């Protein structure tokens, strides 16, 4: 059955980017204000789910041509790698480091290794959730 979703599809094209950008913002802001990798990842997933509802699975796979299981794997490696990285600096496993840097454009910025770990969380959440949704939704 072909349904006519012009309104939904047109709104989605705009709303998707709003949600997505908001999720990125929430992800980066996490260390100081509400947010973080987990919520950020879920919000991104929500944005993609909206796309899925408005369009169909095949279209989404063309728009986002990632293999989401690999995204999960990269995320897990990133998280584990960050945690294990501390061993090479002769501090216990999972010790984070942070410092303030002056960067071009951003000015005075505080950088954390926790951020790297959190991006691993973000990727795993997005990867697994989309994998599950794609598998269940694509099953006939």
């Amino acid at each position, binding site marked *: 059955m072909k349904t006519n979703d012009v309104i939904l599809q047109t709104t989605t094209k705009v709303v998707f980017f709003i949600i997505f950008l908001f999720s990125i913002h929430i992800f980066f802001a996490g260390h100081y204000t509400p947010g973080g*990798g987990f919520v950020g990842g*879920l919000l991104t*997933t929500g944005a993609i789910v909206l796309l899925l509802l408005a369009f169909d699975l095949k279209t989404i796979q063309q728009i986002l041509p990632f293999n989401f299981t690999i995204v999960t794997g990269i995320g897990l490696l990133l998280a584990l790698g960050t945690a294990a990285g501390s061993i090479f600096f002769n501090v216990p496993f999972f010790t984070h480091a942070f410092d303030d840097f002056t960067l071009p454009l951003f000015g005075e910025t*505080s950088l954390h290794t*926790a951020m790297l770990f959190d991006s691993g*969380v973000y990727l795993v959440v997005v990867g*697994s959730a989309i994998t599950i949704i794609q*598998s269940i939704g694509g099953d006939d």
Partner: protein
Amino acid sequence: MEFVLLIFLPFVFAILVPFAYKYIKGIHTGWFVLLVPLVLFGYYLSFIPLTMDGGHAISEIKWIPTLGIAFTSYIDGLSLLFTLLITGIGSLVVLYSIFYMDKKKENLGSFYVYLLLFMTAMLGVVQSDNTMTLYLFWELTSISSFLLIGYWYTRDKSRFGALKSMMITVFGGLMMLGGFILLSIMGETFSIRELIAQAPDLVSHPYFTSALILILLGAFTKSAQFPFYIWLPDAMEAPTPVSAYLHSATMVKAGIYLVARFTPIFGTSSTWIWLVTGIGLLTLFWGSFFAVKQTDLKAILAFSTVSQLGLIMSLLGAGAISYHTTEAMFAFATYAAIFHLINHATFKGGLFMIAGIIDHETGTRDIRKLGGLMSIMPLSFTVALIGSLSMAGLPPFNGFLSKEMFLESMVALRHFELFQFDTWGILFPIVAWVASVFTFTYSLYFVLKTFLGQGKVDQLPKRPHEAPIGMLVAPMILASLVIIIFFIPNVLGKWVIKPAVMAVQPTLYGSPADIDIHVLAWHGFGSVGLWLTVAIVIVGSLLYLTIPKWQPLYKLQPAKLSLNEGYDALMRGSEKGMNRLSRAYMTGLIRTYLLYMFAFLSVTVIAVLFIKDAFVVDMNSFAAITLYGALNAVILLLSIGFVVFAKSRLAAIIALGGVGYSVALFFVIFKAPDLALTQLVIETVSVALFLLAFKHLPALNEHGETKKTKVVNLIISLSVGVMVTLVALSSHSQKLIPSISQYYKDTVATEAGGGNIVNVILVDYRGFDTLFEIAVLAIAGIAVLGMIRLRVSRKETTDENK
């Protein structure tokens, strides 16, 4: 150099073997593998001068220092002797296997990987001073033996034999682990050396006898003692080099090693002496008696190995008596045990290789089909004859010397006056003598039936001819050792045996040179051993000549009453019982499992709550009821009611979303923005997911539920609700320990450099939780993918025999 690392040399080599096998096709992989035991043998020889003076060498790498577990290589006379056996016989077996295993037909890569794995495991067993790593290597020998027995995995019998050996030896290994743990509780150390030093204190400990029996169970299962020997004949399905190596020369001697190693701790106990000597003698008799029943060449050798292991075991038991008496005879017994152990490795290794050659060249191992091979295979015949006569205990072969020492030790047992040996002791020499007669008989049976007599050469599956010379080199080396040792027993004694004896009985001697034993082939006409041997030869020959008359007597034993049948019944019974037990409660439906879990959880938690009197409600600590809160609660309750009573699934899903959103609103009201945000997004995504999966779900009310199950479900869901409410109320109302939140507030900026405590907890304070959670999440995602995408379309019948 830390020579403990050398234990792992074969293991490291095992990693390279598959590449050698894959990329170097022209050369038999065995030639590369041969380097490992040869190099190790050469290296370990250099320890002989050290141990000859009664010294020892230690090398250690820490593994889990907090638990006191380390890889410790402790080389004294005993472990050096076993190390030399493992590497020496190992070299010969690898050499033999190069000609035995066809490089075109067999999967050599995995064969040599398993063999090298075994070598590491076995070196670890005999060199480890730490009981925990000893156990680790011990089980590794069981596993590599399992893999090697099942090497021709397409045969039913191979798989059966592999499983049987694994079941029995791993059972013993676990018992032994229990013994080790008891020992470590008693002595507060895992180190065998330190335990030996405390030996006099350990004897009076209440755990002493339990530890003794548990460790003996480990030794008896591994060394195929009665009644656990039944795995060894079935293990003969392994390729012959494996039988020669694992199942006669090395692995089955691990139990002997264990008994010898722990003699300084347990040797003073009468239980130890009775069990080790008694079971050893029983096994000796049983094995030799049933060896004549067998018709398969390798089965005869298997039973003979069982019986010879029993012989060595009983000698070790008798040797432990020397803790109680100064009579020189019993020190003699330990010496004889070690001596016979070496001799057995030489003659039995050679015999196994000959059995393999016969199998290889004629295509059968059935002794009823064989005969008259002497003229066709003269070299094999010579080697077999030397090995058999040595096994029978005839001069001029090394078996004669150790067999005579064995008989004299057993005769001496009669005079020992402790532990009721003066009444029952007379049984020992009699059983030993009868068993020796049967040993003589089966030795003749093995060699003469195969090589002499009327040849039915035409009826053999293959046309026999002498084996290639490469295959004969290893057995010939062993056979020449059999003769050489007969002429120079005391040189061997000085270099290897005396240091080993000293390691078994460290308190009795100051140095190996103090052991005043000189092995003689001729003791004069007055010697008891001589006349016993003469009698054995006469009676044994008579028995051999009359075999056709009395062999049918074995058929009198009903098959139902054999130990093998007992093992099979046990396996069948436990399989069936477990199957029935599992099927009784595993319905395959997730909702049943959820019921079990929820019922158990709610009952235990509520019970604990009231038994411990932990239920407290402090009304004052509750927040004031606001209008928003009350309204939200009403919406929440309405949504829940809607979920429960909805007529269609779609409505239930939407109502469930409503529940989630109103919970999120509560988070907002109580100022938990992080939780509210997460809850909102989760609800959105999960409702979308539900809608996606909607078409796959069955319609509501189609579970085939009865009224009874509905009532049970209601009770369980109510009790879960009650549990959560009670726990939430009481955990809010009382604090057993001060809250950690102040610590978080104090350190979040300084230690973690963050501002949002919730997220800092996630990524830093409790990062481990998050790490494992995302791992679980990833696994769940991949599992769903696997379940749905890679769904097995149809169950295909796979035949393992193909």
